[in-house]
């Protein structure tokens, strides 16, 4: 909101420089977005002159050559001028050589098209007093020739553009801000003194009879005054100046007076032409569904039964508290006005303003709350102003509906409480003075033992935001100054607590992947519907949709982090930045049997490494990503080696069939998936493939569940005996299945004396020397006894039994 310093000065005498006032406003709690100076700045060498002669420039049709009298000291100067709006005898502002005009424009003696010009006659804009550049600023009232221009022009003004927080609707006006500044600078505050105080003459209007409020909850107070004999015209310059300073456009004297009072008191007002009120009655009612009104901005609006309107007996005149209608406003021929000063329910106005997409200075104030107990003074003030600038007189009836709930609020607060909350001392007298400077008047003071003073404070009606002792702590601190909070060191008694397990998991996963040469990415959570549909599942697309997306391609929660990582690959690829190893840690949202789960997730991709290197390494493959997923699963306490791994099937269209596998499920609290991203889909997305990917997704509650601490398992200190076993199996046989079969046989073959403690595949071979359709798998077997060193004979015996047993009981053929 724009606040004029000149205007503020009507109520409080501030002698501080602008910088000090800016600081005060800031530390009172109103952020100052801009400080602008309006009106003429101090100007040197700019004086009053009178045009004595005006001749056409011999060499330019649009220029004139004038002689200008600049008073006894300066004599008569010749000045070339391009303006057209002046005549001989006009007095104007003359900038002499040496003057510097706003914007740094320096005036010098110069030749213009061959004619000497000894200065410049100025427009308002050139002087920095408005935007008018249509011609010279013609000075009214024949000021003395040679007089400095600052003594002639109205004084400049400083405009603060401030942000008023929603709890302070009382400061959406000049009196409110003046009150705050008076408190800060410890100055008195002078309110306007209304001359009209509610007494209408005996005369009654024959155009207007009554006000009826159908829904008092929407409109707790409605007052209407009738003024006759009003003459509509422009408002005086001083009022226009102030309205403009505050960012409003002057309309006519009556409308301007209303707006002026709104900016002064914060109370919106509305004036009707009494002739346009059908039936002479104002009815405050809800609109009918589908009722239409054309508002002052020329737009036709369709209303609903939640919209409050001000109507006459025939039609809606005004969208209450928001904007007037075209059909009832003041025009040049208006002579009798009905002046509305009302209070509307904040929620109702907020709803209406939102639903119509229509906001105004009035709705802005009503939404935040207008003090019903100042409404009367505001209407009187407006009537004073209208009578002063538009003439007329108040006639009956004066209609007041509602407004009968008295205001009364007291808060008791003690100096001890204030200090306790602040953590530092402020003298009790200073606290009380701070409260009273804001008109939070102390009605009772009690001193308890120990010097603690308790105050009962009367809260004024405009401070509805104050209703608890803590609220007064803030008021005292504001006036004391938040810059004066004394410095302290942090003290903290230890609270034994650990970081959330999800946070700890994320941290471990992040550092694992960074340690394995991955680059961490952060992508957006919201993804397009089509992507879920094609890359994940139709069910996910159905369940993870937002009700009110803002843009079409951000309509769904992400079920996987991989899509974002593919975007990152593509972005880097298109920018020619080689990126191949990317990961993200973050939340994903997984649809599982018609229900959604918010999960912690870590996901990575390995794209083609486009960097040429001086030495070759084997590129990552399926087994590299399996390794990383297993490591990430381990960080969540999941041992992937013992889990069942299945081909990705069904939903999860983004994976390459036969080259992507999955373990776990939402039901068990985690899902691991890894392999190749679908090649055709990658290609469609424009990414140079192939791309390997993996993720581990886990429910937060699984991480939060406290795991069982494992017990130590004793191990043998005797040496191991190693033997190899090679089997010829079908090419399609899975190594895990073969290994399990060998391990099962080995477990029994050794007998009770010792065990085959591990069976691991160490070689896979296909090709020469093997039958068509077969491959060889070689296993390393480790035998060990807990009690002694094994002899070759017994180990060889065990191996023999294993070979025989495998040959007898499995489809695998033992290689000799």
């Amino acid at each position, binding site marked *: 909101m724009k606040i004029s310093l000149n205007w503020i000065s009507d109520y409080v005498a501030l002698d501080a420089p602008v910088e000090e006032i800016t600081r005060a406003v800031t530390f009172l709690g109103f952020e100052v977005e801009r400080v602008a100076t309006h009106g003429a700045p101090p100007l040197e060498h700019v004086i009053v002159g009178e045009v004595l002669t005006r001749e056409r420039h011999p060499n330019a049709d649009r220029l004139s050559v004038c002689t200008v009298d600049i008073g006894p000291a300066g004599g008569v100067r010749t000045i070339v001028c391009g303006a057209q709006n002046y005549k001989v005898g006009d007095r104007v502002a003359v900038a002499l050589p040496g003057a510097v005009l706003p914007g740094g424009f320096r005036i010098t003696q110069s030749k213009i098209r061959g004619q000497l010009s000894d200065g410049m006659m100025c427009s308002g804009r050139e002087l920095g007093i408005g935007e008018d550049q249509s011609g010279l600023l013609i000075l009214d009232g024949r000021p003395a020739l040679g007089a400095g221009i600052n003594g002639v022009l109205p004084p400049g003004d400083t405009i603060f553009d401030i942000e008023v927080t929603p709890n302070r609707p009382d400061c959406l006006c000049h009196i409110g801000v003046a009150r705050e500044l008076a408190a800060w600078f410890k100055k008195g505050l002078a309110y306007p003194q209304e001359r009209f105080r509610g007494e209408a003459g005996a005369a009654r209007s024959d155009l207007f009879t009554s006000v009826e409020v159908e829904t008092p909850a929407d409109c707790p107070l409605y007052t209407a005054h009738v003024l006759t004999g009003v003459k509509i015209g422009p408002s005086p310059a001083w009022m226009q100046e102030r309205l403009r300073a505050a960012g409003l456009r002057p309309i006519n004297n009556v409308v301007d007076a209303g707006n002026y009072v709104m900016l002064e008191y914060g109370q919106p007002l509305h004036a009707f032409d009494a002739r346009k009120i059908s039936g002479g009655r104002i009815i405050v009612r809800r609109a009918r569904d589908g009722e239409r009104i054309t508002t002052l901005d020329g737009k036709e609006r369709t209303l609903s039964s939640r919209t409050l309107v001000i109507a006459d007996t025939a039609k809606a005149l005004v969208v209450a508290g928001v904007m007037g209608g075209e059909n009832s406003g003041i025009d040049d021929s208006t002579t009798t006005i009905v002046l509305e000063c009302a209070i509307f329910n904040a929620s109702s106005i907020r709803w209406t303003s939102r639903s119509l997409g229509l906001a105004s200075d009035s709705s802005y104030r009503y939404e935040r709350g207008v003090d019903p107990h100042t409404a009367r003074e505001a209407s009187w003030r407006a009537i004073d102003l209208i009578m002063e600038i538009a003439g007329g007189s108040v006639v009956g009836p004066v209609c007041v509906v509602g407004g009968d709930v008295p205001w009364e609020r007291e808060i008791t607060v003690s100096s001890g409480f204030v200090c306790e909350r602040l953590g530092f001392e402020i003298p009790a007298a200073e606290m009380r003075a701070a409260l009273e400077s804001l008109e939070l008047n102390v009605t009772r003071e009690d001193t308890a033992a120990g010097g603690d003073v308790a105050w009962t404070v009367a809260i004024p009606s405009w401070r509805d935001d104050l209703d608890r002792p803590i609220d007064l702590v*803030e008021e005292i601190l504001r006036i004391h100054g938040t810059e004066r909070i004394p410095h302290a060191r942090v003290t903290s008694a230890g609270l034994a607590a650990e970081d959330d397990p999800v946070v700890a998991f994320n941290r471990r996963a992040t550092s694992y992947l960074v340690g394995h040469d991955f680059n961490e990415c952060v992508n*957006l959570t919201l993804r397009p519907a089509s992507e879920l549909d094609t890359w994940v599942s139709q069910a996910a697309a159905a369940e993870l949709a937002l009700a009110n997306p*803002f843009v079409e391609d951000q309509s769904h929660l992400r079920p996987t982090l991989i899509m974002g990582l593919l975007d990152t690959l593509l972005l880097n690829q298109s920018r020619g930045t080689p990126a191949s190893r*990317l990961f993200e840690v973050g939340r994903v949202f997984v649809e599982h049997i018609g229900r959604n789960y918010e999960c912690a997730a870590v996901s990575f991709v390995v794209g083609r490494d486009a*960097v040429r290197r001086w030495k070759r390494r084997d590129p990552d493959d399926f087994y590299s990503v399996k390794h990383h997923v297993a490591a990430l699963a381990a960080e969540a306490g999941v041992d992937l080696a013992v889990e069942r791994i299945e081909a990705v099937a069904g939903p999860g269209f983004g994976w390459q069939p036969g080259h992507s596998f999955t373990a776990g499920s939402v039901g068990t609290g985690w899902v691991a998936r890894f392999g190749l991203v679908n090649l055709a889909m990658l290609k469609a997305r424009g990414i140079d493939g192939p791309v390997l990917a993996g993720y581990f997704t886990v429910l937060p509650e699984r991480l939060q569940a406290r795991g069982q601490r494992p017990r130590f398992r004793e191990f043998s200190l005797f040496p191991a005996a190693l033997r190899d076993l090679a089997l010829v199996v079908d090419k399609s046989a899975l190594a895990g299945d073969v290994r399990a079969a060998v391990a099962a046989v080995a477990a029994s073959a050794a007998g009770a004396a010792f065990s085959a403690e591990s069976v691991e595949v160490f070689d896979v071979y296909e090709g020469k020397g093997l039958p068509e359709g077969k491959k060889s798998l070689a296993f390393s077997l480790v035998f060990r006894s807990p009690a002694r060193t094994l002899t070759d004979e017994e180990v060889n015996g065990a191996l023999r039994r294993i070979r025989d047993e495998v040959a007898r009981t499995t489809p695998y053929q033992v290689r000799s």
Partner: protein
Amino acid sequence: MQEQLSTLLAKASAELNEVKGRPELEAAKARLVGPNGAFTALMRQMGSVAKEQRPALGKLINESKARLQELLDARLRAIEEAELSAQLGPPVDPTLPPVEPGPGTYHPLTLVREELCRILRKVGFTVADGPEVETEFYCFDALNTPPDHPARNAQDTFYFPPGARFENVSKHRSDERYLLRTHTSSVQVRTMLKGQPPIRIVSPGRVYRRDTTDASHSANFHQIECLYVDRNVTVRDLKALLDYLFEALLGPGTKTRFRPHYFGYTEPSFEVDLSARHLPKVNKDWIEIGGCGIVDPEVFKAVGYDPQIWTGYAFGMGIERLAMTLYGIDDIRVFYQNDLRLLRQFTWGS
């Protein structure tokens, strides 16, 4: 005899010089000092030597034997050295770059978040976590947000359809709507409901605003919030925390100031400004960095804490905004594009 010995030694020395590996050395050793070796054979001749000559000859033999052993040892050392040298591989050029694709990098938002958490851990804050999908109660009601507050509006906040079911995000009331949290303060509510004071947590995380994306706005961004609940928590404590936090983050001479402000969940409330003349691209005396205040008694009532007993403070700020200030980045969107040239610029301590 003497002659034979010196011939043998000369021959052994010449032979051993040609020995390359351990097996050859073993063979040479056997040829010389083995049971059938040449030296062993010479020693056997001792018996046929005259008695008076024996002491002198004995001495000579011992000397020769020692010499022979020296030659063998020297050869063994040479072989061992050669074996080690063989492990060295070819000579290296230390200026050639590594061929691995790394190093891996942390995202700048992670670096800033983790640094803040580390600083706060030192004064007793532990990191709390909570869902990004939230309900109206945790995001608004419990934080003293009036029912028709604009923040709740569907124009500003993402909601889910009434039928949406988030199985592991608990509702406080069954008729609540699910939404995407607009601030991490919802974690404060969940933490307070779950535990008992005193509480000292920091909750970093992703938040959502239904807003146009531009250089300073993104549909999701990250916040970090502190909450401290205890007896007798004061405004001065809050100021002390922020002074500590920013001085730890930005170095000595960093200043903070409070400006009175308004938030529904704190009273009094402040905006926090940072004096950061030494930061890149900041040419102002003060930059706004976050909001804070003393926890409003209504918030305590909503979670069942007695506001007569418990007091607290809360502080929150945007991580992107801070990261932009710290690193001199002026477009928030670069954080979400993940251009590798950005990601490679930042490491711990940068």
